[in-house]
């Protein structure tokens, strides 16, 4: 249907074009005509003057006197007698005389030349228009072809050669469409990447769950057998530990899945960061107290009221993760120091602990999903290896960054988080 519509519009446009062309031609002809008429008028006056001169000459006797008279004085007067003489001899003013004939020839030449001029001019303009139209049509076809490709989902990255366009606007249009194509491509790729990532997540989850579930199964099987009371208790406790582990893991996994499936939107609302951090501290306070760990919070007065666009719930989770890690991997009677520092574009938050620290080689790995360190101390603690991964995801969505370095005096760890003001 689009085809027929386009055909119809082309015809209509074609008709309009012809109408315009005719109008333009008529206009130009009119101009040339006016021009010709004024030249004709001038020539006629010229002819008239010639006749009058002759009349004057014939009028009076003294030829030389009359000649100088004509040349010196502006007007040619006293021609009446001369006119009578001409009449007497049958020479009309606009009659059959040599001068008149010459005048006529001149007229024809002038008008003829004008016409020729108009025709040639039009010829040139038309030819130029036609070639330009052809070029523009071709260029338009190139653009159309590109859009057709995109519609069919064929979005390849054409090599960046300067597109051979003469028309500046078409060239810009082409480049804009190319960049639209790039965006389309990015979207496509993001979509397939998300699918892949979901597949990965699913296999990761099943893998991670296998171990504790298998251990649980084994423990149960053993419980089925004949055991002493002590052994019963021991294995029951083992089951308990496994179940707690699974519970932990499930909790964290649910969080990640929701986040990756886009079920959870992080909503950035400008609000007081200090409050969010305080809340995080309050929620881990009990655990810290159990280990006699002191949590200090340093922030200049002016920073206490500062608003940062963030999602209170999720960012609080992120801070809780970090604090819980700090508590988990610190011994008794240690300190954890939080500080807020104002930078130009970002607010800098540092969480410094006096714990077991992290080996430099593992700095990148600790943020990976399910990664837990290898040392005995770490294995002793419960943990799913998801905390830091989640934290980093959350902070990324806040357009911030997180990294780690050695803590004070090279002991423990310091996590540095940067969150933008806007």
């Amino acid at each position, binding site marked *: 249907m689009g085809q027929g519509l386009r055909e119809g519009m082309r015809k209509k446009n074609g008709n309009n074009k012809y109408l315009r062309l005719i109008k333009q031609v008529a206009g130009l002809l009119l101009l040339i005509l006016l021009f010709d008429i004024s030249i004709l008028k001038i020539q006629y006056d010229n002819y008239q003057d010639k006749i009058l001169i002759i009349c004057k000459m014939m009028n009076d006797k003294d030829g030389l006197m009359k000649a100088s008279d004509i040349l010196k004085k502006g007007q040619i007067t006293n021609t009446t007698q001369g006119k009578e003489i001409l009449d007497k001899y049958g020479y009309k003013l606009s009659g059959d005389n040599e001068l008149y004939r010459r005048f006529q020839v001149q007229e024809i030449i002038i008008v003829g030349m004008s016409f020729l001029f108009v025709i040639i001019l039009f010829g040139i303009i038309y030819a130029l228009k036609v070639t330009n139209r052809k070029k523009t049509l071709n260029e338009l076809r190139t653009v159309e072809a590109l859009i057709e490709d995109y519609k069919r989902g064929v979005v390849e990255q054409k090599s960046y050669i300067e597109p051979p366009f003469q028309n500046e606007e078409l060239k810009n249009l082409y480049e804009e469409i190319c960049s639209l194509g790039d965006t389309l491509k990015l979207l496509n790729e993001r979509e397939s990447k998300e699918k892949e990532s979901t597949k990965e997540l699913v296999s990761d989850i099943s893998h991670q769950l296998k171990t504790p579930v298998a251990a649980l199964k084994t423990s149960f099987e053993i419980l089925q057998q004949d055991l002493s009371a002590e052994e019963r208790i021991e294995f029951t406790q083992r089951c308990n530990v496994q179940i707690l582990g699974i519970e932990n893991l499930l909790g964290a996994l649910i969080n990640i899945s929701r986040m990756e499936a886009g079920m959870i939107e992080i909503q950035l609302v400008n609000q007081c960061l200090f409050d969010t951090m305080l809340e995080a501290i309050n929620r881990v306070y009990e655990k810290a107290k159990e280990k006699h760990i002191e949590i200090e919070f340093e922030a200049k007065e002016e920073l206490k009221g500062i608003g940062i666009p963030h999602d209170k719930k999720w960012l609080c989770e992120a801070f809780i993760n970090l604090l819980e890690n700090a508590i988990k991997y610190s011994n008794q009677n240690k300190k954890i120091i939080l500080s807020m520092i104002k930078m*130009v574009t970002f607010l800098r938050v540092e969480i410094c602990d006096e714990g077991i620290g992290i080996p430099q080689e593992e700095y990148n790995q600790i943020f990976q999903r399910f990664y837990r360190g290898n040392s005995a101390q770490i294995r002793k603690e419960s943990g799913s290896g998801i905390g830091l991964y989640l934290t980093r995801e959350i902070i990324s969505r806040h357009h911030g960054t997180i990294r780690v370095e050695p803590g004070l005096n090279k002991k423990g760890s310091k996590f540095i988080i940067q969150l933008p003001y806007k």
Partner: protein
Amino acid sequence: MKNIIRTENLSKIYGKGDNLVKAVNNVNLSIMQGEFVAIIGKSGSGKSTLLHMLGGLDLPTEGKVYLRDQDLFQLKEDKLAVFRRRRIGFIFQSYNLVSSINVWENIVLPLGLDGKEMDEAFIRDIIATLGLESKLHNLPNTLSGGQQQRVAIARALASKPDIILADEPTGNLDSKTSDEVIALLKMSTQKYGQTLVMITHDADIAQIADRTIIIEDGRVVE
């Protein structure tokens, strides 16, 4: 993900015989659109040379560099210059600002050279993000290192390039300012969908990148 930068057996060799130095030795890497890649290596490992070749600033002895599937070194000098100007933004360790013009002029200079119309709203947005609003009339020598680097970043971002190549952008900055500059670069390039390739000798910065490439003696050791 589509490749935006790809190298094939890229090498840069200086000297001959006993004096032969392979600054960059047979490097094959590919960087995807939108990635933040950190190239890490010690001093003299060849990373600067590599970056310069990626940006078409230096001719390789062997091998090819493809930017958006365009073989960079097939282009003629002037076409290469235009390509570079439009597609790549550079940030150097020593800022390289023009000392005789003020901050605003430094930022829009490349745009003016290109004869392009300025998207003023976009540039104002960058300036606001980088915290430079109050410094627009200052001359570079009245600014701190961190501020100068911000101006250099604004300049690199102003022409909306597809790729930003940064050579030790935090080399002359203190640790906290460094952190901020990196976070800024990451935030801006993510916001505008750009690819960021950064050279650094500081492995801590790599924690913030999407991917790290390690260079040793001109070779990639990933």
